[in-house]
């Protein structure tokens, strides 16, 4: 042990060594299984070492492609999966006993895992060789992402079922991945990210312990299977400290709450997708630098380095990325890992008093917040009461307010906003990916084919068994795998469980929220509201609607809070609404304007549905409609031609500018029609 040097990593034989790079992933999937399979094989060929599968919203929410609510969404934000036949094509020529597969799937994770297991069984692969992760964090779905299907208690039950099954049959599978990623996207501060995701992990582990299905050793192993999916934003030093705080707090929880003795099972294992929230539509080329800096936050410190990394593409604030955009992000990882000396050193920050002090502060604040939630009944209770959700909405509103006032600088957005036009968005495609609307037909035909060929009686029997097991509270993995083999569809599996469990509508994030904003623009819009009231004898009324399956409700909720602050009466009733729901509410509530929020890329189809529904009610020209969300500039003229009065994109970040414009539209419309 003589002359070891502090800047060198030594392996267990005492030889100097270098770390292996983290797993490189690209979140990918689109159009249909055939196209996605081509993309995966090409990505693996480029040196990507793991798969990260994006599913379309219908698959995530438990609908088959042939259902009405699913049709506008087929292949939009990911690949549509209906039956095992789809999975066979998706993984065609991909060795699933070799590749590490991460699936971003939650409400229907049990189903997608069952399909994966059934595929392995059909290929004769030993299940113990399967490696990967089903995201399966329902708490953050209720809080931020919105693709839940069942109520909280039943959602947790399904997660526990999967832990029980996986530990015995697929020991290298991570049945769930506790996500702080989406919390940050929803506005969480570092402390909230730490606290809420650790509460989530505690909620899952407490539920597993309560089922009492493992002996002490197995339970330790099970704790060891809990992995995390974390975000990293622009404040990269704080983010690095947050990762160290995570590691230390998790070790503390594993020891103190669960008595885990083996240090291996107390490791904080995490993957990262860096922040998309801070990416701008303005001067989108700047996002390339942002992504690089965010990647540093989770790779610089060896003690808190991620196990797997996926990076967004520079143009995510515009629309869906193209394969080239994703390749560019992958190259960043490869340059960082292979061209630099990053992987040659032990932890660079060990012993730094600055880092240590920051970490301690984060830990102390996170501990307080965790205790507060546990004292109030735990994670599930904090979902039902809406506590965590409301805290996130407050943080997001504060963040927006800071950007509005310029207190938080965003280059190219609220500072140095003038610049030379980006040549990157100059191409024929406008620099974004477009799903070919015709390609959905292939998915629908494949589903028809499978339904025609499968044994209908077997399907019926398998679904009966699933229902029976669900009612009896049994573990549903085996019944689900049997369904997968029988070519049951995604919608049939989820629909059967919906019948037993019901469907959940959580509290929206708007309760008790307020906006602490006082400026000239607010006074301007309130004056317009007063003009309206004097003239028409009531407050302006707006329906804020989120149609379709896209569950990112925070934008809609922020607009609702802002509209109330401006003086509107706002009708807001949550996510996953049909065009019929929204038009009916607009009519019953006799509103002055309809505001629609859409981020899933299905705006063209959904707006057509909505306009058609308004037409049928004879209200198409009577109620103005405005639209906000991730809408590519190229789509705007066609939307305006359909009758949309204004389109707001991430460029329009000043809430009161938006409200002023909406109020102008309302007043102008009233003046015209009386």
């Amino acid at each position, binding site marked *: 042990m003589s002359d070891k040097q502090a800047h060198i990593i030594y392996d267990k034989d005492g030889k100097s060594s270098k770390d292996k790079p983290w797993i490189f992933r690209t979140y990918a999937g689109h159009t249909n299984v055939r196209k996605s399979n081509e993309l995966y094989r090409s990505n693996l060929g480029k040196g990507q070492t793991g798969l990260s599968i994006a599913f379309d919203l219908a698959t995530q929410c438990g609908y088959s492609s042939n259902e009405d609510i699913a049709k506008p969404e087929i292949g939009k934000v990911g690949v549509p999966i209906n039956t095992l036949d789809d999975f066979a094509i998706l993984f065609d020529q991909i060795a699933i006993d070799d590749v590490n597969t991460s699936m971003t799937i939650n409400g229907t994770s049990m189903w997608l895992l069952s399909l994966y297991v059934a595929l392995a069984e059909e290929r004769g692969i030993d299940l113990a060789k399967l490696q990967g992760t089903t995201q399966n964090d329902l708490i953050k779905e209720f809080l931020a992402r919105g693709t839940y299907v069942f109520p909280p208690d039943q959602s947790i039950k399904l997660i526990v079922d999967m832990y029980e099954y996986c530990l015995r049959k697929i020991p290298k599978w991570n049945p769930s991945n506790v996500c702080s990623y989406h919390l940050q996207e929803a506005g969480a501060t570092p402390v909230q990210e730490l606290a809420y995701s650790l509460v989530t992990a505690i909620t899952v582990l407490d539920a597993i312990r309560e089922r009492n299905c493992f002996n002490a050793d197995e339970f330790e192993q099970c704790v060891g299977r809990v992995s995390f999916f974390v975000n990293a934003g622009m404040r990269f030093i704080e983010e690095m400290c947050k990762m160290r705080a995570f590691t230390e707090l998790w070790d503390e929880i594993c020891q103190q709450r669960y008595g885990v003795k083996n240090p291996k099972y107390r490791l904080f294992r995490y993957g990262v997708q860096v922040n998309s929230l801070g990416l701008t539509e303005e001067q989108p080329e700047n996002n390339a630098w942002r992504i690089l800096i965010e990647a540093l936050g989770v790779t610089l410190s060896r003690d808190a380095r991620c196990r797997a990394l996926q990076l967004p593409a520079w143009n995510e604030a515009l629309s869906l990325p193209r394969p080239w955009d994703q390749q560019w992000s992958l190259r960043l990882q490869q340059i960082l890992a292979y061209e630099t000396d990053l992987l040659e050193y032990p932890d660079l920050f060990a012993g730094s008093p600055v880092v240590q002090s920051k970490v301690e502060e984060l830990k102390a604040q996170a501990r307080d917040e965790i205790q507060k939630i546990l004292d109030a009944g735990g994670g599930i209770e904090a979902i039902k009461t809406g506590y965590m959700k409301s805290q996130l909405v407050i943080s997001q509103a504060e963040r927006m307010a800071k950007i509005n006032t310029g207190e938080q600088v965003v280059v190219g957005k609220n500072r140095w906003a003038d610049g030379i036009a980006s040549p990157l968005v100059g191409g024929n495609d406008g620099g974004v990916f477009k799903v070919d609307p015709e390609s959905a037909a292939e998915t629908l035909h494949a589903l028809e084919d499978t339904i025609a060929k499968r044994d209908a009686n077997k399907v019926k029997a398998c679904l009966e068994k699933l229902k029976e097991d669900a009612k009896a509270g049994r573990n549903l993995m085996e019944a689900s795998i049997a369904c997968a083999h029988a070519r049951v569809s995604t919608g049939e599996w989820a629909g059967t469980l919906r019948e037993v469990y019901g469907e959940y509508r959580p509290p*929206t994030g*708007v*309760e008790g929220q307020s906006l602490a904003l006082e400026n000239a623009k607010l006074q301007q819009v309130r004056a317009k*509201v007063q003009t309206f009231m004097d003239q028409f*004898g009531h*407050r302006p009324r707006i329906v804020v609607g989120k149609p379709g399956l896209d569950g990112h409700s925070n934008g809609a909720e922020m607009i609702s809070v802002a509209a109330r602050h401006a003086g509107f009466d706002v009708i807001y*009733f949550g996510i996953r609404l049909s065009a*019929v*729901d929204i038009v009916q509410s607009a009519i019953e*509530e006799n509103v002055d304007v309809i505001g629609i929020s859409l981020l899933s890329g299905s705006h063209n189809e959904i707006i057509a549905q909505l306009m058609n529904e308004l037409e049928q009610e004879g209200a198409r020209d009577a109620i103005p409609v405005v639209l906000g969300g991730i809408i590519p500039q190229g789509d705007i003229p066609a939307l305006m031609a359909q009758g949309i009065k204004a389109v707001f994109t991430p460029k329009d970040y000043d809430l009161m500018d938006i409200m002023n414009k909406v109020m102008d539209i309302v007043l102008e419309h009233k003046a015209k029609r009386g």
Partner: protein
Amino acid sequence: MSRHPSSPTIAALKNQPLAPDLLQQLQQAAAFKKWPLAKLISLFENRNSDAAQTRHDIARHIQQHPQDFPRDARVIGFTGTPGAGKSSLIAELCRALLQMDANIAIAVLAVDPSSQISGGSILGDRTRMHYGKKEERLFFRSQASNLELGGVSEATFQATRLLRHLFDLIIIETVGIGQSEIDIQFLTDHTFLVMQPLAGDQIQFMKSGIMEVPDSFIVNKCDEEKLARTSYHMLRSSLKQARLVELGALDDYRNAAREQIFLTSALKHLGIDTLAQAVLNIPRRKTAEQCETCYLKKGVQRRYGEFGLRILKNEPDVLTGATTFEEKEFAAQAAIQRHIR
């Protein structure tokens, strides 16, 4: 003259036939066409002084054509703290009522508080009223408590003036346990207080004196039988302290409904049918006339205080011959003005 809506001077009313476009709207509303109905409700909520003439025209038309408006709604209030699950419960109750009675038509008025800072509001009660498809016999309307515009009960009262002629049942949902909720009872034939099990609500209600307002109690979220049983006994002992019931050794939670205690779970569909049956059997207790008198007095008190109320009491004849609420308001104002001059 300020146009502040809470103190408009009431202009003299003309007796004139209902304008053809309004007549058409009213006929369509009576056939449950939702948009015309929604527009008429806006008219009844409208605080501008010129809307009063139109309301007067509509009210007179209805009075003069009773055969066209055979429905005569009973009005039921649901109040209680946020978190008691009122919206989900009302959604389930409506579903049950529509199934039990193939002819019943229901209007729901859901009142949420307005912001004290901006005056705006977020009305979120539709979140639970999610039927997924159009239901003709159910109409749902959100209202803001709109404090500066005369209080929740004013807008709600105005809406019920119209709705009572078009529906069989009006359900009014209010949040909280404040003055608004106490006011709501002046409108309703029956008031339910919705509580959570074991949440200590009862104590709060007793302190605030609201225990004496409701005609019935609902303990919602009784998802398990044990919870229902415990809640029943806890509530009864609270009621005993308030001297509203006698406790007996043989009290059985399964007979709770007999003493106007309902144990429900909107989530698990428990106790909903019992509640729906009770709602269908609720007798009428107030006439439209009585509601109008009550809200007339409230309006007079708001504008002229005790002085105005005293004049109204000493000179009851001033209202004789007034047919609509608007005429009564005008007559009362004229009488009071005579004393001011």
